[in-house]
């Protein structure tokens, strides 16, 4: 078996595409004007930033005036949540609803607000990684300032019933924000139709560069300024625009949001082949609902082995993947996402996430399906946990 290099971690980040890079490059050396300058070089930069804004807005079904460029998805989340909290606290509303398995950009922001005197309700998810909209309805109170629920989970890829949750929020007159960093470009989003008040997105997940994101804020919602300074981003987020990055994001989202259904039709069967192939290994399970998930995401627990070892072994075989193990997170606890869907600690430690795109070849999939069982067998051979499982002993 000839060694291959396969990047199967697109949920972590993506390569900047050639098409995106080509529209960015002139902005470094030729069209380098400050978008705030009066002369043509500056005006051109301004025009390009605004064109990018139109593209982001078009991809989401929003108005360009509702799009604010930021430096990343985490910044967008922070701004939406802390900004709403500050705004609503003035009206005596200091309760926030979120879910237990949000990205840390949301969870840690909520935890910070708890320390500032806000109350946070963490909605549970079911064993398939889905939120019941009725749980959101039941959690809403008179003093609820914001509901923030992710569009698609970053680890297990499950897509949440966003439209239903948004409808409940609208009915109860509570603002609704969604972290759509993993969803944009993979599922059809229309903020107006779906009733979304605020939405965070990130560039580097959709083949733009790292360090650029955006926040959609529905017209009529006036968030406090994030960065005080000049008049950029309608004075809400001051600081000279990162023109190349913004232009790149505009082109990237335009490409990513074209042919979403066609791309999903290509990638889903490939993903399913990987799922079925890996599940042939005994003592494995798919995490997250099989159908209500991002087309390129698969997350499988492999009992008896530990995730980081698996990733290192895969890396030695040229496969880039991700895991929910503690060791890959820098903490000693396994992924909060996997625990939230009811996995035991020792099972959560041995999880594998692959996030693929439509360019993955059948040969790549053959290779992955050849390598993974071998690597798993090797790790299980040296695992005392596996030995106990096979002897029918209790694993502590």
């Amino acid at each position: 078996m000839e060694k291959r290099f396969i990047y199967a971690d697109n949920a972590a980040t993506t390569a900047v595409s050639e098409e995106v890079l080509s529209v960015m490059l002139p902005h470094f050396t030729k069209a380098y004007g400050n978008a705030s300058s009066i002369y043509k070089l500056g005006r051109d930069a301004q025009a390009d930033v605004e064109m990018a804004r139109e593209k982001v807005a078009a991809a989401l079904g929003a108005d360009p005036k509702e799009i604010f460029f930021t430096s990343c998805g985490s910044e967008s989340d922070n701004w939406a949540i802390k900004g709403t909290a500050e705004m609503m606290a003035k009206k005596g509303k200091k309760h926030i609803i979120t879910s237990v398995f949000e990205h840390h950009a949301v969870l840690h922001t909520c935890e910070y607000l708890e320390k500032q005197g806000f109350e946070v309700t963490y909605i549970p998810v079911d064993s398939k990684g889905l939120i019941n909209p009725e749980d959101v309805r039941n959690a809403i109170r008179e003093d609820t300032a914001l509901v923030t629920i992710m569009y698609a989970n970053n680890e297990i890829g499950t897509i949440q019933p966003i439209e239903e949750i948004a409808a409940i929020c609208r009915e109860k007159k509570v603002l609704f924000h969604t972290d759509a960093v993993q969803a944009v470009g993979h599922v059809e989003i229309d903020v107006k139709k779906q009733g979304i008040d605020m939405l965070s997105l990130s560039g580097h997940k959709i083949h733009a560069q790292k360090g650029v994101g955006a926040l959609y804020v529905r017209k009529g919602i006036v968030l406090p300024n994030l960065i005080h300074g000049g008049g950029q981003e309608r004075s809400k987020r001051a600081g000279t625009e990162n023109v190349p990055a913004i232009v790149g994001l505009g082109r990237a989202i335009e490409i990513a949001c074209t042919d979403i259904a066609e791309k999903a039709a290509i990638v889903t069967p490939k993903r399913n082949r990987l799922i079925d192939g890996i599940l042939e290994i005994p003592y494995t399970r798919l995490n997250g609902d099989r159908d209500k998930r991002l087309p390129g995401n698969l997350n499988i627990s492999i009992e008896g082995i530990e995730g980081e070892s698996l990733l290192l072994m895969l890396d030695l075989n040229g496969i880039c993947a991700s895991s929910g193990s503690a060791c890959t997170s820098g903490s000693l606890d396994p992924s909060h996402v996997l625990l939230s869907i009811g996995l035991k600690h020792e099972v959560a430690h041995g999880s594998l996430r692959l996030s693929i795109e439509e360019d993955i070849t059948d040969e790549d999939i053959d290779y992955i399906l050849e390598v993974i069982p071998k690597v798993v067998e090797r790790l299980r051979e040296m695992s005392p946990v596996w030995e106990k499982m096979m002897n029918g002993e209790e694993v502590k």
Partner: protein
Amino acid sequence: MMYSEKVLDHFSNPRNVGEIEDADGVGEIGNAKCGDIMKMYLKIDNGIITDAKFKTFGCGAAVATSSMATELIKGKSIDDALKLTNDAVVEALDGLPAVKIHCSVLAEQAVRSALSDYYTRQGIDPLPIVGEIKEPEEH
């Protein structure tokens, strides 16, 4: 996170993996909940560790420290093996990331746990010789 070449080497080609069927001492440390379990097998002859093998469930550092610990005690006397510190394991591996130091402690304790079992099998109270075995803290 950066692993040294030596850690990667001991991870990808671990030394002394397996079991010793007629081992004179077997120790196990850690728990699956924390994500690391090490099981260590020792063959002891006249106070000398003639063979050492291990099985590990855990991250790259857990495998590498187990591998290195077995290498460091093979052919040594029990007294020398008892002097094995986690720092010595870390040093022999050209360092470990800070978040992985606990793996080297597990390796040290796995050796002690196996020696403790050896003394127990001999009808000797291991506590005064080996000391307390430190289980990793629950999280």
